[in-house]
């Protein structure tokens, strides 16, 4: 071995080398600088704390996943386990009177149990980690739906304080994130199990032949991941004051992305808690900044994907440049590491300070600013709300920022928080969940920003106006339509919406109410198809196997109705009548063609238009009505021609 070594130039290329050595940190700094330069609202204490809060859940999950990835495994179940733990806490404390302290212990035990099952399947059952945790992803999600019966459960107040702030400014989630981060760093750097993770991830067989009890360690590693998931779940639910069975859906991928952005290798053996924190912060800064910059919801996803790829690319580049690999040497130059972060902080502050001067005099345009947070844009109904709102905003000269919460209550909380801290004139919210939006809306109320709810209400917080069509009444109308069509007698199936959403619950309630008037109608099956056309097709095909003689279908939205029509084929409109809900353009087309018998049409673009009208009124200090009902209409072949959403 050639032992002569070259000392790296210490001072001249020092900064360049430092940044290359810490690819993720560089990426974070560049992002922060770019965001500060682009948006004057980014660099405020409030907003930076927002970023911290928004990073918290992902970061805590990701710390747990770091253990697993360092040991060359993968944990896909963390999002579901988080939701399950929070549900267990809320269910035992709120509905069964278990003392809160014990409920919290139960939640953590749930996390540990899920982790142990993962670990057992992987270490002793020899399942690939991907498969074992994929199974747990499904099981934990299912159990949380079973326990909660699909509805969010109010979170005990004492635990909800975890979502509050300390001393009025320091958000507790940030505190929890820091504590869990330090814990993760301690475990990875100093403990026997932590050092074993690197050895197992680096070379499992060598670790085993060196006497490490690899199987037992794996049990512990996945249990650790479960504990962190449980903590993340509790923090998430505390922020929303409610345990949502569908919470943290897909967060495992964010967590894995954060770990990998932070410099860990999926092949195992490398990774650090500090890197993971940086990874989570990169994701949060990005989402926050894109909200503030009013980037289209669709493009946000594209940008996030590109940044993930770039961040990891930067890291690969750094490795190619031959810098010392990140992990493995816990005590390796602690002083140097401190210098790194210190220097990074100084550089950031300097550049950010300079850019913030740019914004001092560039006061914003005269137009009133309004933010619209939609629950999803993955459904034509909400796209129409947006279209109506945007058209009206253009007409009235309002600057409208639209965000897409992707059916994720906590992402919506983040977006509302961003709206509040960027001091918009008014906020229009279309809640993912009526309970979960309450904390964010309260915050907006405190900041004296008028809030208009659209389509769904907000519980336990005051909104200036609710613009909605009545889901329960609409459900009753749908039941009546099918009842009359079948002459009061026949077998029908009901396709329900996504379990846990208020629209699904309320429409189901309406269907049940309406069907009471038709005792001759027999509901042979009720199954959820998640408001989704593909799932509607699958569920209907399955139901047809069991009930080939069905005569009617009520679907809680048009998308599922259209899926059912596909499954029914030529039967649709002939021997089977399908009634949908929403009156989307596709739905109305189907009504025209006769395959869809009727759609209980809301007027989404009207909802959007009226919401913007009222937001402007509230912003200008004019009085607005508390509830504005937008009429619901049953659209059939007879009246479809004259109907416009």
């Amino acid at each position, binding site marked *: 071995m*050639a032992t002569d070594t070259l000392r790296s130039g210490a001072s001249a290329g020092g900064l360049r080398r430092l940044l290359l050595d810490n690819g993720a940190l560089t990426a974070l700094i560049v992002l922060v600088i770019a965001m500060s330069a682009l948006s004057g609202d980014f660099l405020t204490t409030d907003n930076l704390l927002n970023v911290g809060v928004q990073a918290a859940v992902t970061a805590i999950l990701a710390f747990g996943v770091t253990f697993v990835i360092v040991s060359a495994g993968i944990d896909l179940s963390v999002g579901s386990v988080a939701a399950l733990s929070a549900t267990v806490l809320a269910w035992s404390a709120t509905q069964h009177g278990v003392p809160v302290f014990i409920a919290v212990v139960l939640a953590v035990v749930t996390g540990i149990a899920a982790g142990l099952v993962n670990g057992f399947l992987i270490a002793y059952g020899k399942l690939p980690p991907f498969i074992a945790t994929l199974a747990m992803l499904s099981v934990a999600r299912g159990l949380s739906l079973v326990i909660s019966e699909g509805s969010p459960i109010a979170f005990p107040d004492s635990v909800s304080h975890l979502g509050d702030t300390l001393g009025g400014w320091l958000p507790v989630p940030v505190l929890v994130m820091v504590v869990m981060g330090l814990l993760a760093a301690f475990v990875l750097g100093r403990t026997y199990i932590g050092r074993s993770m690197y050895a197992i991830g680096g*070379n499992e067989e060598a670790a085993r032949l060196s006497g490490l009890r690899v199987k037992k360690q794996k049990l512990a590693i996945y249990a650790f991941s479960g504990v962190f998931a449980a903590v993340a779940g509790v923090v998430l639910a505390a922020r929303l004051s409610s345990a949502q069975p569908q919470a943290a859906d897909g967060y495992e991928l964010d967590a894995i992305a954060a770990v990998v952005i932070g410099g860990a290798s999926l092949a195992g053996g490398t990774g650090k808690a500090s890197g993971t924190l940086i990874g989570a912060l990169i994701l949060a800064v990005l989402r926050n900044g894109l909200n503030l910059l009013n980037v289209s919801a669709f493009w946000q996803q594209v940008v996030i994907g590109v940044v993930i790829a770039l961040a990891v690319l930067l890291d690969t580049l750094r490795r190619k440049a031959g810098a010392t690999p990140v992990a493995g040497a816990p005590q390796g130059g602690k002083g140097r590491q401190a210098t790194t972060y210190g220097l990074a902080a100084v550089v950031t502050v300097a550049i950010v300070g300079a850019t913030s001067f740019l914004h001092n005099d560039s006061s914003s345009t005269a137009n009133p600013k309004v933010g619209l947070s939609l629950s999803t844009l993955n459904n034509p109904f909400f796209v129409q709300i947006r279209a109506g709102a945007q058209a009206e905003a253009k007409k009235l000269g309002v600057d409208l920022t639209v965000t897409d919460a992707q059916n994720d209550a906590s992402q919506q909380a983040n977006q509302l928080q961003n709206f509040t801290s960027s001091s918009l004139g008014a906020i229009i919210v279309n809640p993912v969940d009526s309970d979960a939006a309450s904390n964010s809306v309260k915050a907006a109320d405190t900041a004296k920003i008028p809030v208009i709810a659209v389509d769904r209400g907000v519980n336990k917080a005051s909104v200036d106006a609710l613009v909605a069509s009545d889901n329960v009444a609409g459900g009753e109308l749908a039941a009546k339509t099918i009842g009359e069509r079948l002459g009061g007698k026949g077998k029908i199936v009901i396709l329900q919406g996504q379990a846990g959403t208020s629209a699904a619950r309320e429409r189901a309630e309406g269907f049940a109410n309406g069907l009471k008037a038709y005792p001759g109608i027999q509901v042979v099956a009720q199954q959820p198809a998640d408001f989704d056309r593909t799932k509607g097709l699958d569920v209907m095909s399955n139901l047809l196997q069991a009930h080939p003689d069905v005569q009617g279908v009520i679907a809680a939205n048009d998308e599922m109705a259209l899926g059912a029509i596909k499954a029914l084929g030529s039967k649709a409109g002939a021997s089977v009548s399908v009634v949908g809900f929403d009156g989307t353009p596709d739905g109305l087309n189907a009504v025209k063609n006769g395959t869809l018998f009727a759609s209980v049409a809301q007027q989404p673009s009207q909802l959007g238009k009226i919401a913007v009208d009222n937001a402007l009124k509230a912003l200008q200090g004019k009085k607005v009505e508390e509830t504005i009902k937008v009429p619901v209409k049953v659209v059939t072949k007879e009246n479809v021609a004259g109907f416009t959403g």
Partner: protein
Amino acid sequence: MSNEDELLRIEGIRKSFPGVVALDGVDFDLRRGEVHVLLGENGAGKSTLIKMLSGSYHPDEGRVLVDGEEVRIRGAQDAERLGIATIYQEFNLVPDLTVAENIFLGRQPRRLGMIDRKRMEADAEVLLKRVGVNVSPRARVRELGIARLQMVEIAKALSLNARVLIMDEPTAVLTSGEVDKLFAIVRTLREDGVGIVFITHHLEEIAALGDRVTVIRDGKSVGQVPATTPEDELVRLMVGRSIEQQYPRERGDTGAALLKVEGLTRDGVFHDIGFEVHAGEVVGIAGLVGAGRTEVVRAVFGADPYDKGSVKVAGTALRGHDVGAAMSAGIGLIPEDRKGQGLVLDQTVEENLGLVTMRARARAGLVDLKGQREAAARIAEQLGVRMAGLHQHVRTLSGGNQQKVVIGKWLLADTKVLILDEPTRGIDVGAKVEIYQLINELTAAGAAVLMISSDLPEVLGMSDRVLVMAQGRIAGELDADEATQDSVMALAVSTNTVKTEKEARGGH
């Protein structure tokens, strides 16, 4: 000026990696129809050099000339175009494709956009015949043994019309019969005008096959000599000093039996294995590859299960298939596959040295980092591990130094019975002797050593007793003074064990 027989010339190549100068002025040339041996200790820079020729690395300085013209080899395609083919120690074959598919991977003959399987297989057949290996082009590569895999690699190189064939330690994994076959093929290729760069650690192969030898030491080419140069001289060039004695075994007094194995059996793998190793003794296990030697020692160490028999250390029986129990009884295993089983390559020297003792030295779940560092520094110093520092990743150490790290982690655990499985495979002469010295020190201190080796001179030179295994059984035991290459080989290839096995099975 350029010789018209000259295929390849390398002048003043320099290549450095961060912190390390791998090559520092290497000159080399290759003529048509010659076997040019590249000789050097592990880590001397041979692998770096051939990776330059295959396009994996690019030189920082210096020139590469092919047919007298300066070329830049940027990747595998460039190398292919220039007619340079490389056969690495780790084969580049896809296990689940057929032999023919592997030979023509990425260049399959096509007809109407579809792979012309018939032509491909016929072409492959011709190439395989030229290499002289009897294997069907339709066989899956997964099913082939190592020797045949190598032949497939050679056939693949020929299919590229390679004029320069680089072979990186092709004989390291072959049995002597297979080596003879390989040599025959290499000689045929040489007659066909192919220039062959041949890397080997076996000095006797140089005289048998080579024409010229270039010796590389510490990244520099230190000499070019004819292949007829005496071995002593080659070693002196390679190591930079002369080595007095290749096998410096110092036999002392033996004590009580430390390790006692009785009737150890795993059905279908090894049968009725029994032996003792005394304190202060080195027992060698010889035999052909596949005789079951590695399987036996892994079972003794608890890494694999066994069906019958017992393992006793200092009179106490060990639980089977329990590495922890074997370790606490004082057994340590240096596995055959150093990189795959002995080391965590991307961890530091310090962490690897502390792997075995980490648990025992931990307090309340916390690793004693300071103690670990001190112990690692002490043992690295004692073993003379050549490294930039305790924080160097073991991946970047040379083979000999890596092996010292593996041994070191067991020394830290006060191992009483050390099992060494092919301890010097792929290690250069200088480091070998250091490892032998270490074995001497261990036995002098009262430890027992069990050593598997396929290198017969090593077994004979270092063992106090030799066990010979054949077909999963112990075929015989020889004392140091009665063990010769012939007597060991006679036992290793003895077939009567097979018969007894068959009879035994018939009797059931």
